[in-house]
């Protein structure tokens, strides 16, 4: 060892590596402390460490120094004898962490008891505390060589005394890992089966739909009356939970029921009814007036003028919309009795809504009853 790098000797280095300051962390633009090569000159430079002392050096140095058998660590003041075989690249950038992980791995291999081995949880926790104390002594008692030695001795003693136990636990641990792996694999397989099943059912459903469509078309082709059945059936399937229509056609009901039987598991209760049946773009809403009939034209001298006025029609204004609105305004609110709705909650939404709005809007709750759906048609002040 003629040439030793001028690295300041470290008092604590020795044995299993008494403590490696964080300053040894490898960074990308590092320089090999032994041969002073910098990464600029050797792009592929790789740092290796030996768990004996955790001193990093580049792979070239390792080859150069240790190819001919064991040699002393080239760091000044470090008297560890290292072998080529012991070198590896560090997993962690910070070598203190690397070292701690190594130690913990070693301790964990020896103290591999599991909770089942203890009588009470308290005992297990005490054991864990003990192991952690020992680990801590091994890892962090850099300056206090005595404590580290003692811990090391404890560890070796325990290992020697409980060889059989350790071996047994190791085996049990491996078995547990194996079962966990198998369980995961089984779960994956089950999920795959579920998906296959779902795909198959979707396909069946599609075929069913195609078939029923064809049937409906046949029916339509046969006669006029079938059209009504068709419309009714479609409406039924679209509704999320439709009460059985009292006057429903027998055939329509059967198909409806068959479409609903495809519920698979209770967990999907929420989505199953939605996914069956064709998509209803209106989502079950219908605003066709049932108290009056809207005609295409209502005779009115006043309105007819606007209907013909190009100023109105060119921009898309449609007098028919005005008819519709006037009729809507005139008839909405008929047959709505707030009192009843509030008491029975028959209209599940609006009963609550009425109350809400009542609180927010109405100035007097006990005053004359105002139907909630009457739109207050005040002349809009904003043109």
């Amino acid at each position, binding site marked *: 060892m003629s040439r030793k790098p001028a690295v300041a000797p470290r008092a604590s280095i020795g044995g299993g590596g008494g403590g490696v300051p964080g300053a040894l962390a490898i960074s990308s633009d590092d320089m090999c402390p032994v041969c002073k090569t910098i990464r600029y000159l050797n792009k592929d430079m790789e740092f290796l460490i030996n768990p004996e002392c955790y001193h990093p050096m580049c792979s070239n140095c390792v080859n150069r120094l240790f190819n001919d058998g064991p040699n002393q660590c080239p760091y000044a003041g470090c008297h560890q004898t290292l072998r080529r075989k012991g070198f590896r690249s560090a997993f962690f950038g910070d070598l203190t962490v690397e070292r701690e992980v190594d130690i913990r791995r070693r301790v964990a291999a020896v103290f591999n008891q599991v909770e089942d081995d203890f009588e009470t949880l308290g005992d297990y926790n005490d054991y864990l505390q003990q192991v952690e104390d020992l680990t801590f002594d091994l890892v962090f008692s850099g300056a206090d060589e005595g404590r580290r030695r003692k811990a090391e001795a404890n560890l070796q003693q325990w290992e020697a005394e409980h060889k059989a136990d350790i071996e047994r636990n190791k085996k049990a641990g491996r078995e547990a890992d194996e079962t966990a792996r198998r369980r995961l694999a089984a779960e994956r397989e089950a999920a795959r089966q579920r998906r296959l099943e779902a795909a198959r059912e979707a396909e069946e459903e599609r075929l069913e739909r195609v078939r029923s469509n064809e049937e409906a078309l046949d029916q339509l082709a046969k006669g006029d009356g079938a059209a009504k059945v068709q419309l009714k059936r479609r409406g039924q399937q679209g509704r999320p939970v439709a009460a059985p229509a009292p006057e429903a056609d027998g055939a329509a009901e059967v198909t409806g029921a068959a479409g609903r039987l495809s519920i698979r598991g209770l967990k999907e209760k929420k989505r199953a009814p939605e996914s069956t049946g064709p*998509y209803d773009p209106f989502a079950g809403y219908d605003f066709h007036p049932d108290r009056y009939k809207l005609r295409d034209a209502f005779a009115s001298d006043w309105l007819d003028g606007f209907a013909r006025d190009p100023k109105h029609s060119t921009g898309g*204004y449609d007098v028919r919309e005005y008819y519709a609105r006037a009729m809507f305004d005139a008839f909405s609110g008929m047959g709505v009795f707030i009192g009843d709705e509030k008491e029975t909650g028959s209209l599940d939404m609006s009963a*609550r809504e009425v109350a809400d709005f009542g609180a927010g809007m109405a100035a007097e709750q006990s005053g004359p009853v105002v139907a909630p759906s009457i739109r207050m048609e005040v002349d809009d002040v904003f043109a």
Partner: protein
Amino acid sequence: MSASPLVAYPTDTLKVNSRPTASPLKRPISAAPSSDGTPRPPVQAQPTRPHATMDLAEQMNDDEKRKWVKGKKLGEGTYANVFAAHLRTDPSQKAAIKKIKVQKEYRDGMAPDALREIKHLQELNHPNVVRLISVFSSKDQNLNLVLEYLPLGDLEDLIRNVNTYRYGAADIKAWMGMLCRGVWFCHENFVLHRDIKPNNILIAANGEAKLADFGLARSFSDPAIPMTTNVITRWYRPPELLFGARHYSGAVDVWSVGLVFAELIIRSPFLPGDSEINQIDCICRAIGTPTEENWPGVTKLPGYAVAGETVPVYGKDAYMGRFGAVGADGVDLLMKTLVLDPRKRITAREMLEHKWWRSEPKPTRNEDLPRKTKGGLEKMAADLKRVNPMEEDNRGAKVARKLDFGAMKK
């Protein structure tokens, strides 16, 4: 506390009484209104309540305000701040409070956009229209609108973040379905939205898209009552408004819906004009020039001005190339929403009756739509969602189930 300036307070006589509770806001919550929202009658049992100075309306307002706990600020707009909020009695009931800023021009009254919003939203109750839960005023007569809580952002977010969100024809169909339903509901109730654009379409926690921001809404006009043409964000403004038509109908919203549709497909604005003149130009170039042939009477509109050569209205082939992702039926619907003549444009109801909804693919279910994610998805949901049922679950294969240093090096 909103105190009408017209009310003269007999402050001197009541001062002694009101001292113990310094502010009515610090009163314990015992006075929360009953669950059905019925306001409580003036309570005599609590003599310390300074309610003697408040008229009934103020008292109700106060009760309403007290129902809500305002949380952190969610965002700030030009004319309102939005805060998170929840019910005092049940913190799981979330809401958003839109606090209208006092505007200089409207110091003497309510801001018109706030008024429009309240006026129309209080009447509309539909899953695809944002719900107005309550309204109250806070100090300085600031209006507070309590709106439904919609935590998953807006459609613009989904469209713009091309790398974050991937979606397909089925997803577009689902969103369009919800949008069309919302618009249809408004029109069916004679309300023009007049500001439909992707960032006014908000996504609820369950994936439902909802039409929001009714600041420009109004009801359908009576004949002879002119409406303003200065509505709808420029990119989504229909030609009749650009040409200054003062009488229009729901067709203006349908045009906007069509452009949102196009934007969903190409994931960038379809007609991004940088001025009104340029917007007309964009329409002429991308859709066709409005002429007397395709839109009788258009040249008589006050603002009619088209520059350059007349471009014939494009046919289906031109659209198929760019919007083919939604299939022939989808393109057909898109074209019908982008008809120049508002009289020939499809209506909201007809949109929902279109055959596209019944053709393949079926719209995605709400819970499966792409959305802002908060944390990982549940496993069950994840494996039901996979498009290809045969695909293997390799997602977590490379991640260690637990920290296992033993496996690192032996």
